[in-house]
């Protein structure tokens, strides 16, 4: 309950380019808002404690654990989920690379791995460099995304390959 006694609040989010007006229980995390209010179930819940990375999405271009953020605290934020791939050519290339390298098994951590990889590529680009993601950097910077099936070596190969494809395609 907030100071005015309301246990819910209105919030406006831009999700995958679409503005969504929601009224949410104040306790609702961004993850639950995406999954339950917006029915975008591509984003997964693995631990609800910010420890597994399955719920990774991008908020204003930065990768975040959506289970650790309250949706009502993110007014007018720009959210990208795995379903937003159609808008983002880079995510599309990452998806293709995941399939080519069989970088998934059960697929449950995959949306989070993909969003995390996209966030990583955005970070690397912002830091300068040639835009490619060396294996060592991928391993280190994607360690917040667990994969119990053990697809790590294939994920690293996929992200590295996708980063090259993206770098080559960027003028």
């Amino acid at each position, binding site marked *: 309950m907030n100071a005015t006694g309301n246990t819910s609040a209105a919030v406006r989010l831009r999700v995958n380019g679409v503005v969504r007006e929601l009224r949410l229980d104040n306790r609702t995390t961004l993850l639950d808002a995406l999954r339950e209010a917006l*029915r975008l179930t591509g984003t997964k819940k*693995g631990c609800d*404690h910010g*420890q597994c990375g399955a719920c990774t999405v991008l908020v204003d271009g930065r990768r975040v654990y959506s289970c650790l953020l309250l949706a009502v605290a993110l007014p007018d934020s720009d959210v990208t989920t795995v379903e937003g791939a159609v808008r983002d050519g880079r995510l599309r290339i990452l998806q293709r690379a995941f*399939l080519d390298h069989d970088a998934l098994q059960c*697929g449950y951590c995959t949306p989070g791995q993909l969003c995390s990889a996209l966030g990583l590529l955005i970070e690397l680009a912002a830091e300068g460099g040639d835009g490619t993601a060396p294996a060592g950097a991928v*391993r280190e910077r994607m360690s917040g995304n667990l994969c*119990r099936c*053990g697809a790590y070596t294939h994920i690293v190969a996929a992200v590295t390959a996708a980063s090259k494809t993206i770098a080559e395609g960027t003028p």
Partner: protein
Amino acid sequence: MTGGQERVDGWDKVTGRARYAGDHAVGRAVTAVPVRSTVARGRIVRVDDGEALRQAGVLAVITPDNAPRLAEVHDAELMLFQNHRIAYRGQFVAAVVATSRQAATAAARLVRVAYEQSCHEVRLSADHHRLYEPEHLNEGRPAGTSSGDFAGAFDAAPVRVDETYRTPAVCNNPLETHATCASWDNGRLTLIDSTQGPNTVQNVLAALFRLRTDHVRVICEHVGGAFGAKGAPRANTVLAAMAALVVGRPVTCSFTRRDMFAVAGHRSPTIQRVRLGAHPDGRLIALAHDAVAHTSTLRRFAEQTAAAARHMYAAPHRATSHRLAALDVPSPSWMRAPGYCPGMFALESAMDELAVRTGVDPVDLRLRNDTSVHPETGQLFSSRNLAACLRSGARLFAWAGRNPAPRSGRRGHWLVGTGVAASTYTADVAPSDAAVSVSVDGRYSVSIAAVDVGTGARTMLRSVAARELGVPASAVEIRIGDSCLPRAVVAGGSMGTSSWSWAVIAACRDLRRRVRERGGVVPVTGLTARARTDAEVAALADRARFSFGAQFAEVRVDADTMEIRVPRLLGVFAVGKVLAPALARSQFVGAMTMGLSMALCEEAVTDPCSGDYAQHELATYHIATHADVQDVQASWIEEEEHHLGPSGAKGLGEIGIVGTAAAIANAVYHATGVRVRDLPVRPASLLRAHRCAEPSPHDRGDRGNAAEQP
């Protein structure tokens, strides 16, 4: 790369379109959240649900005083709220059903449970007063075996190893927690469930709720990992069905990550004594493996920890035994390669110790003790290519010329070592049914109640059917993940592939025959062929059926901090015919990665005061992540297997985790001279044991370069 063999459901998984059990519930079900016991042993005296019931959105509170009565089933973990007894901390004692998960979770905290607490015992020891020898192990295996005169032969053996190894409790922790959405319609129950076996869930839930089996339908389109934890229904499935009955609406129930440590099952901790007596040339004279594990007071889960020692190596005098202590802990259950995985850590560590004591190369030692018949029963093996795996692995890993002396492989700041261990797992097959249809326009449809838990079953079955039908894979649709489809064995025990593909191949062959009989013309109504493999499976020749493998590890240990890195893992396996190479490689590499995680990270410790695990989340229960995993390679040898059905395939989902931990621990010994017999291998165990510390170079440049490379 996948060599063109992309997963059938790959695009659905990378786009977020693949729907898992919890996804199906969104928008159509209310939520049940359990209340869990805060004592480890005792009785529920009173449940006060008044305050919880007054909360907005709460529909019901289910307690032992008002729960619907269930019929008794074998697994007492499923008998939710049927009595007032507490068998372990974290057990479900009540549940709140509410219109939202937030409301149910908040109200569950307001349910007051009064307990009468008794003293609990949660720590396993080798001399625990509750230890007993079970009548038999899981799947009817004998608890003890012996042949020859082990005691006499061991005492007289020129070289002896007598050591005790310990493995901790470990938790499956698939990334998707168990989830169910249950709905009732005119006395029929439909469950969308995250399970390895829709038919198993169907049968157990029908028994619990006294329903006809065909009045229970279980659907599991996608499963977010399982590793044995979803091999049979768990409390979430029963709670969802019970709550849906109580409130008359669809109900979903998902385990939280915290729940997973208590109610999802775990691999029991073990204490294992291995004794090896050998000739000076390493040939075994006597071999004994004695295993101690825990189970719960609710369920006897007797894991086959010493089973691998029964068939791995020749030795005229031998014995195995198992003892269990029923502690006040959650029930252990299946986890990837049950028994064989912890058992082979002990046996393969002991073999390495024997190699050290005899001075025989560890690969040669295993080759010298290979056997062509089952050393206990005299049975022929259906196929056994341990030696080929060891030889192939040694070649690929460049093992030859290895200096066996511990601490001989120093590179800059790193102590470098290599180790080897053998792998094995059962290669079983079980009866299944399948149906294959063809439409007049040449589309094929294969139906079987199999499940894809991430193994690639859909893709594998499509490839098998297409090959058998002589059509492109794109002409074949695979329907799995529904108990309404032809009956199938659970996706577990490394027998899904051999069992399902047998039924599918039989149905495909029958369909082709029928089409031929009609002169190659498919009628407008289409044609369907069904197969059932019970008779063929029962008629299989008497053989010992196992898969084998060899794993090689390179480790680097920081000379100061004892941080352990694994720059290289290689596994070579003999698993019959490999039906889908890209998927097989992913499974081997994934299982070896889980083995690395077991070797270096994973441990659930029971707190003797609270009776609970000290770890119940992924911040304290560590599993290997990207930064822990470097080069992991898997390959296989060509193997002819004629005793497991027409596919010639042995299952391969489990063998990859067997032996990894021993290979790594053996490599750590080679690198550091410290033998770690208790998993996980941690820097602390090495620092404690490291008596002969030598001065280490603190040259920053040296250290910086080394840190780039591990």
